């Protein structure tokens, strides 16, 4: 008795193989719309270039917010340091 789940007879195996062969040679209802090898080559080169650029830019991009934060902090400190003496100077300049 054949296990209907997985076991197949030799005849059935031939039928399956013949079916797959028929499928292999059956014309496709659609055609591939793929680029030519030269286009793909160019695309790969561009992707490689972009990747390389991204790799070089990454540390700069990472440092940008840190630089900004450090700048703001320095400006704040400078302001805190200069503000008391500025308050002393402003009345003298006005009067």
């Amino acid at each position, binding site marked *: 008795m054949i296990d209907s789940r997985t076991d197949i007879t030799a005849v059935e*195996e031939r039928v*399956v193989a013949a079916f797959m*062969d*028929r*499928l292999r040679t*059956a014309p*496709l*209802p659609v055609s591939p719309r793929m680029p030519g*090898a030269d286009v793909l*080559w160019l695309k790969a080169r561009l992707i490689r270039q972009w990747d390389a650029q991204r790799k070089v830019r990454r540390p700069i991009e990472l440092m940008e917010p840190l630089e900004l934060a450090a700048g703001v902090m320095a400006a704040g400190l400078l302001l805190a340091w200069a503000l008391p003496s500025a308050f002393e100077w402003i009345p003298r300049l006005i009067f």
Partner: protein
Amino acid sequence: MLAEHAFGEFYQRHARSVWTYVYRVTNDAADADDIVQEAFLRLFQTDVPSDNEALRRYVFRIAGNLIADRWRRKVRDERQAHEAVDGREPQAHDIDVARTFAELKPRERALLWLAYVEGGTHADIAESLRLARGSVKVLLSRARARLRDLLTARGIERLGNDR
């Protein structure tokens, strides 16, 4: 990395067969276009095997992985994709063949295609589909049995022989 000339030759030689495999498994020409393009582009991202046959298997493996990724994303659309066949059909038998095959699950289609059309060994198929080598034999038997059941149910078990 591949030289331009070697890549061009390899692409010309194998792009069509990879496309046909992907198309038969996904049943979607646009997906097949994207996947094949992506698979060949990946050849530039890593060190690839130098011998042609290994490189061919490698492309099939990448394509298999990309198909698997898309299955996960497109499980819901699967049924709809099965019906996406355009009107320029060749022969009634060919349509029957394609439709019968499309009734199988994507993984079953991939297993059968790699085994019968590409002539892959269990090891090759396991590699292409990210399966354990031991599972391939069992899954392939099940896929074969499913196809047999479909052929029997549709009364087209002689389809392969009556050209």
